[in-house]
C-alpha cells in the first residue's frame, strides 16, 4: 500500500515537473511577439535535436554544454528584443533617414557577439539559427537587420550543415541578403 502511494506521489511529482517545464514554451509559441517565436516550418531538425536530449542520462560534460546553451539562449532572448523595430526607427529619426540609423548599426554588436560565441563553441550554432530565423521572418524588424539575419542564417547553417531551406523568408529580404558580403 505504501509502495503504491509512494509510486503515485512520484508520478504526480514527475508530471508536475514536466508540465512546469513545458508551459513557458507553449506560452511562447502562442505569443507571436515572444522572443524566438518560430514559424511552423522552421528547422525541424532543431526541434528533433531538442527532443532527443530530454530524458536521457547526461554526462557532466553534456550537462555543461546544456548549461552553456541555456545561458546562450538567455543572451539571444535579451538581444532579440533589442533589435531595431521599424516603428521605433521611424519615430526616433524624425524623417532623416539619409544614412543608416545609429540604432541599426548598433545592433552589429549583437551580431558580433553571437558570431564570437559560435566560433568559440560551435555547439551553440543551433540556438543561433533559431535566433536568426526568428529575426529573418519578423516583419516588425528593420529590413536591413532581417537581411543580415538571413545572411547569417545561411552562412552558419552551411557551416553546420543544417538544412534551413524551409524557413519562409520573403523574397525581398533574400534579395538583399544575397548581395551582402559573407563569411567564406
Amino acid at each position, binding site marked *: 500500500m505504501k509502495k503504491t502511494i509512494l509510486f503515485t506521489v512520484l508520478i504526480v511529482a514527475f508530471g508536475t515537473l514536466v508540465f512546469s517545464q513545458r508551459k513557458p514554451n507553449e506560452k511562447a509559441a502562442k505569443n507571436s511577439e515572444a522572443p524566438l517565436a518560430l514559424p511552423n516550418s522552421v528547422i525541424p531538425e532543431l526541434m528533433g535535436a531538442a527532443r532527443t536530449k530530454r530524458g536521457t542520462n547526461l554526462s557532466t560534460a553534456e550537462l555543461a554544454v546544456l548549461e552553456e546553451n541555456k545561458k546562450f539562449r538567455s543572451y539571444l532572448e535579451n538581444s532579440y528584443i533589442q533589435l531595431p523595430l521599424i516603428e521605433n526607427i521611424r519615430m526616433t529619426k524624425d524623417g532623416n533617414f539619409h544614412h543608416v540609423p545609429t540604432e541599426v548599426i548598433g545592433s552589429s554588436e549583437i551580431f558580433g557577439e553571437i558570431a564570437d560565441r559560435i566560433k568559440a563553441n560551435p555547439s551553440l550554432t543551433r540556438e543561433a539559427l533559431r535566433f536568426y530565423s526568428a529575426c529573418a521572418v519578423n516583419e516588425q524588424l528593420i529590413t536591413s537587420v532581417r*537581411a*543580415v539575419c538571413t545572411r547569417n542564417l545561411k552562412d552558419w547553417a552551411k557551416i553546420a550543415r543544417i538544412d534551413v531551406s524551409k524557413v519562409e523568408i520573403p523574397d525581398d529580404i533574400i534579395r538583399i541578403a544575397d*548581395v551582402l558580403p559573407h563569411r567564406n
Partner: protein
Amino acid sequence: MIGRWGLLFLAAVSLSSCGLFKKNNSWVAFDSSVSDNQKDLLQGDLQLVGSLNFANVTYEDLDRIDLPDLSGNSLARFLQARVKFIVGEGFDASSQRNVVANYYNYSPSLMNEFSSAFDRVVTVMTNTGSAVYLDGKQSNTLYSINIADQNLIVASPRVGIIKIGEGLFSNSRVNSISPDSLGHRLLRLGTLFHESRHSDGNGSNAGFPHTKCNSGDFAGYYACESNTNGPYNVEAMILKHFYEICYNCSESELSALQISAADAASRLVYGARKRDSQPEYVR
C-alpha cells in the same frame, strides 16, 4: 581691458565663422569647424584609400561606380575629384552664400573630366555645394560660396563641400571598437563614397538625388535609390569589398560593415536603372 578681450573674442568668433582652414598634408582642406580629432581620423581614412586592393571585382561593380578598375589609385582619384573641402557642422552654408546672378538661365553643359572648364571652375566638391547648386538651378539664381578665403562660383554639383558630423561619425559608432580601427575607417569611407556620388549626374538627375520610397521601412521619405549607379548602390558595392579586406577585424566590425551594406542595398527600388553620371556645369 574688457574692450581688448572683447576684440580678441570677436576676432576669434569671426575667424571661426568664416571658416579658417587648417593646413594638412592630404588633398583635402579642413575647415576649422572640424575638430582636430575628427580631422586626424579623416586624414588617416583618406590615406588608407590609396592602399586598398580588392579581389573578385565584377563588371557590375565597375558599372556602378563608373571606374575602369577598383584599384587604390582609381578609388583615390575618384575621391580627389569630388572631395576638396571638408567642413564641420558649425559651417553654415547659407550664411556663406552670395548671389552672383538673379534670373540666371541654367543651360548646363556636360562636364568632361578632362576639360579645362572643370579645372577652372571646380576647386571644391561636397554635398553642401551640390545642394547649393541644385537650389540655385531650381530658383534660377547663380550662387557663390565663401570658403577657404575664396568666393567660389557654384557652377556645378561638383563644386560642393562635404559636411561631416552626425552623418559621418555617428553612423559608424559601434561602442566596442575604436574609431581608428580599420573597421571604423572603412565605415566612414563607405559614407564618403556615398556622399561623393551626390556630386555627379546631370539634368533631372544632377546630384543623384534620392527618390521617394513608395513602400518599405522608409515609405514616404526621400530615402530610396532609383539609380543602379547612385550613392546607395555605390556605397553597398564598396562596403562589400571593404568587408572582404577587413582582415583581423572583429566580428562586430564585420557585422557593422555588413549591416551598413544591407541598409544601402535595401534602399534600391524596383525598376532602378543606370543613369549618366557625368556632372553638369554652367559657364
